[in-house]
């Protein structure tokens, strides 16, 4: 009997859709390829080096921490790769390599593995790494923006070596200039300064469409997020166009697209139900605009998503679908 091959017995269901964490993460990686290409086009070798550093160090820290904790190896689920790429996308092209490694450490070890690894982290690891770097090394994160390879003398935005949002904050560029069509077009394509992965809205949207097509993400968070920003910016613009940039400027500047498509939709740290996702997206949008408009920092995407991450457990408590056959709230 014991030599005989035993049948496998488990609880139902006995068949599976075939979806796996690895598959989902692979799709996310694929979706980030256009942005990565755009980053290399605009920022050259630096973008490649930075991304490679972050990915390698993230995977290394993931491996190391799992090893020290004597737990199974999880680098195969590719989540560390995504964290690495996202972290790199959130860094300026001239960012020092050793600092990127520190950021990877914070992202993988402190924000993720200390909580038990993928699925347990309450905050988005890449954002934790980015915010740590941003708050620690403010100068390196925002100081020297001059692109390494891409210098277009016709493009004033590029030569002033400041991000569009930075210029809005410092009021160095006139609002009218920032909001004019050619500038918006540059921002849409990515011919501006900024972190390596956030400049090209076009590439990011392509990736987002791929994710939607593969059903990795749903439309709720990105649409709610971007929509809220658009509505908020439109209202401000209508109140006073001379001090407020146009809604299109707000949509394509800074990390909004990157945040809305890749970071706010991080499954682990966003609400699970559709209604909760809408709340989450709207919250992100409002906070982003509040910080952009009144806060001390030019950009509020990372902070807003991070803050909303903290509210996710509460949103999950409140936003629940109505159970079939139950009148009113469950």
């Amino acid at each position, binding site marked *: 009997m014991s030599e005989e091959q035993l049948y496998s017995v488990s609880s139902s269901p006995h068949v599976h859709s075939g979806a796996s964490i690895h598959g989902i993460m692979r799709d996310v990686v694929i979706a980030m390829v256009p942005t990565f290409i755009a980053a290399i086009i605009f920022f050259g070798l630096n973008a490649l080096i930075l991304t490679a550093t972050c990915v390698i160090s993230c995977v290394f820290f993931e491996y190391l921490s799992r090893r020290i904790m004597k737990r199974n190896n999880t680098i195969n689920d590719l989540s560390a790769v995504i964290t690495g790429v996202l972290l790199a996308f959130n860094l300026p092209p001239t960012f020092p390599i050793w600092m990127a490694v520190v950021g990877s450490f914070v992202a993988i070890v402190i924000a993720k593995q200390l909580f038990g690894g993928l699925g347990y982290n*309450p905050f988005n690891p890449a954002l934790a790494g980015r*915010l740590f770097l941003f708050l620690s090394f403010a100068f390196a994160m925002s100081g020297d923006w001059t692109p390494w390879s891409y210098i277009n003398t016709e493009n004033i935005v590029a030569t002033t070596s400041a991000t569009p949002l930075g210029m809005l904050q410092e009021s160095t560029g006139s609002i009218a200039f920032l909001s004019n069509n050619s500038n918006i077009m540059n921002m849409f394509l990515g011919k501006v300064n900024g972190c390596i992965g956030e400049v090209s809205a076009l590439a990011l949207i392509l990736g987002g469409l791929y994710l939607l097509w593969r059903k990795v993400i749903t439309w709720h968070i990105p649409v709610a997020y971007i929509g809220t920003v658009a509505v908020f910016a439109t209202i401000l613009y209508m109140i006073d166009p001379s001090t407020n940039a146009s809604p299109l400027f707000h949509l394509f500047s800074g990390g909004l697209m990157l945040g809305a498509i890749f970071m706010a939709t991080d499954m682990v740290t966003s609400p699970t139900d559709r209604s909760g996702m809408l709340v989450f997206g709207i919250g992100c949008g409002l906070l982003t605009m509040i910080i952009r408009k009144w*806060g*001390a920092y030019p950009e509020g995407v990372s*902070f807003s998503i991070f803050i909303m991450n*903290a509210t996710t457990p*509460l949103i999950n408590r409140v936003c629940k679908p109505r159970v079939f056959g139950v009148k009113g709230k469950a």
Partner: protein
Amino acid sequence: MVKLILIVISAVLVNNFVLSRFLGICPFLGVSKKTSTALGMSGAVVFVMTLAAAVTWLVQTYVLKPLDIGYMQTIAFILIIASLVQLVEIILKKFLPSLHAALGIFLPLITTNCAVLGMAVLAIQKNFTFVETVVFGFASSLGFALALVLFTGLREKIDRSNPPKAFKGVAIALITAALLSMAFMGFSGLVKI
């Protein structure tokens, strides 16, 4: 009016009592295991702190200042806060037993919640008027409540998670608090007060 709104925004978000001023950490870490208890504690703190703001301002302005013994602030305030808490407890127990049952166990804790005394001292340092002090007290406690409730939600998630053994319990709670506090850094510069 504008100043009152600014005080509220400042105390709730920008200079959150727990996350950026480090006041009231003990209850923040201690009473954040379950949402129900966190809400009870928040209620008790909001109640007591608002009341304490009013009373301490009155004592400061009408007793300590005229007598020119501002340095006795600490002793006077802690006495007042302690008795106030006791008083509230006695009265609640008599007249609102259900509320007492809900908040009762948290009330004595508030005596040593440094957020209350800290709020009173801060309000005096900032030369707030009476109304401003009361609003400040209320908003600070609201900020405490906000941080506590958010943190409790996170901790309920973390309690179901699987940190390495060495980080189970307080250590991981502190790391979570660090990340939450990092999130709240985003509000900095929103208002200056």
